[in-house]
């Protein structure tokens, strides 16, 4: 018996008014992910850059990022459903809460880990605060920032799947609906789609990283230094905690 037939049926892709198809669910999933990431970036980038730039509140960021590792996603989704009711708002808040810490930690540690002598040189040459931040600190922090974005992205794609449980659309629907309709091909198909989406998104960001990060920062080993730094910038990011 094959489970893949479901995935390659054009009928399943198109769906109907009564039964949304894969195309619509995929768009929904992408929509939730993009919206969440956008909101989370707007919150986390300036905050993380500011904390990293001034050095104030760094310990707090590390603490929060560590604590949120243990926060059960499903509990958060349910709690927010009970608090704000049905709709996009609850899951969206949950997704943003989960996406902010990796972004914040990436931006903060990226900026904070910029070699102090480089910042010193920048100031000494007469760069003002914003110039130091935008021309020196952020470009140098970019690998870690994008690392944070990748972490957040995977988190959001995974969690948006679970959010189907509290009534959200997206690809998670296939997994849960397949379970209640006793339609395993649908479950597997949905799972494959989610996994593919996660992998493709991660690859795209990896490509983006290669495009955006200065070649001067990509020389392998040139300044990666001891193990700790390398752990932080891990490419595929197995060192990042997952919560969903």
């Amino acid at each position, binding site marked *: 018996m094959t489970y893949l037939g479901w995935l390659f049926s054009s009928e399943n892709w198109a769906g109907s008014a009564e039964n949304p198809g894969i195309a619509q669910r995929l768009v929904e999933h992408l929509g939730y992910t993009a919206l969440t990431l956008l909101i989370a970036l707007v919150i986390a980038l300036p905050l993380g850059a500011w904390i990293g730039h001034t050095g104030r509140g760094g310990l707090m960021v590390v603490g929060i990022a560590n604590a949120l590792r243990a926060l059960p996603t499903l509990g958060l989704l349910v709690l927010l459903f009970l608090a704000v009711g049905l709709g996009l708002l609850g899951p969206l808040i949950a997704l943003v809460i989960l996406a902010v810490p990796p972004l914040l930690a990436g931006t903060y540690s990226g900026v904070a880990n910029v070699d102090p*002598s480089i910042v010193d*040189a920048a100031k000494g040459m007469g760069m003002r605060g914003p110039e130091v931040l935008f021309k020196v600190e952020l470009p140098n922090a970019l690998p870690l920032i994008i690392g944070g974005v990748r972490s957040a992205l995977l988190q959001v794609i995974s969690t948006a799947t679970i959010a189907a449980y509290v009534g959200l659309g997206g690809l998670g629907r296939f997994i849960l609906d397949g379970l209640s309709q006793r339609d395993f091909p649908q479950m597997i198909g949905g799972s494959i789609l989610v996994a593919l989406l996660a992998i493709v998104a991660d690859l795209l960001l990896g490509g983006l990283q290669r495009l955006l990060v200065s070649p001067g920062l990509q*020389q392998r080993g040139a300044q990666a230094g001891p193990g700790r730094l390398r752990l932080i910038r891990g490419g595929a990011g197995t060192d990042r905690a997952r919560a969903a």
Partner: protein
Amino acid sequence: MIEFRGVTKRFPDGTVAVHELDLVAEQGRITVFVGPSGCGKTTSVRMINRMIEPTSGELRVDGRDVLAGDPADLRRGIGYVIQQAGLFPHRTIVDNIATVPVLLGRGRREGRSRAMELMETVGLDPSMARRYPNQLSGGQQQRVGVARALAADPPVLLMDEPFSAVDPVVRENLQDELLRLQSELGKTIVFVTHDIDEAIKLGDKVAVFRVGGTLAQYDEPGVLLSRPVDEFVDTFVGRDRGYRGLGFLSSDTIPIGELPTVGLGDPVPEQGWHAVLDGERRPLGWIDGGHRPGGATVSEGDVVPGGSLYPVGSGSLRGALDAALSSPSGRGVAVDADGRVAGSISADDVLTALPDARRHDPAA
């Protein structure tokens, strides 16, 4: 010219890093701040471009109060070189050097062409322009650092331990290069180091700081060596200061004596040390008369390596003494400006000339 008038820096935790500093770094000269760690030398230099704000006192660069106006504008007019260069890893060499011109609003293109000129000035191959800092050696990075500081042609250059992270051979190289550059550019340079030898080599004047941020002595290097004001400076200047002090005394009064010489292919002399010369009368080494392992005529295999050479007219007593002491014959070879043999000097001649040289030393 950079003037410190009663400048004090007290950090929020109460530590006094610099206490009532009065000092003038002269126009077009290299002034070196030297001292043990915690003596306030780096704090002092960083107050000049307001990387650290003075707590009290007055600080002027070319007559302008540095505390008036915007620190960023001030810094754009002052070159700044730090340890390990502080190059921007995300920018190419040429863009690193062009940083300040671009900051000052000159176009990127103009900045780059200026950067290419400067690369040659500091002795970097222009083919490196498109590379990134981490593809360069430490010494090369330091040259880029100097070029970057010079890019906007600032009259003042601050150098904070710029050569302390490179190996001794490269460091000596960079020091020579800096002296050569300075002879062409004539900037007002304040140079911080913890290495007294570097201070003495580079400084037109040297300021020795003691822990607690006070100035122990501010003098020309020769004076520092010959007449340290107190025990602290004496100890800091270190051993052999008497000998090193000879380096700042003129050797013009030393009599140049005879030098027995022999050419390659000539018969080996009967006895005594002879300098072996090439066809241009440049010294190749020595041969000990009477010993003839290689046969009856002088061949290259017979030549014993000589010591250092003493350049007539431009040498110091230290150079003269070393030439004599490092020669196997006990007599140092004196050469003229073209490197041709001019005669010989002995250690006795140097010592005889010493009192006279001291009397004529303007610094003394």
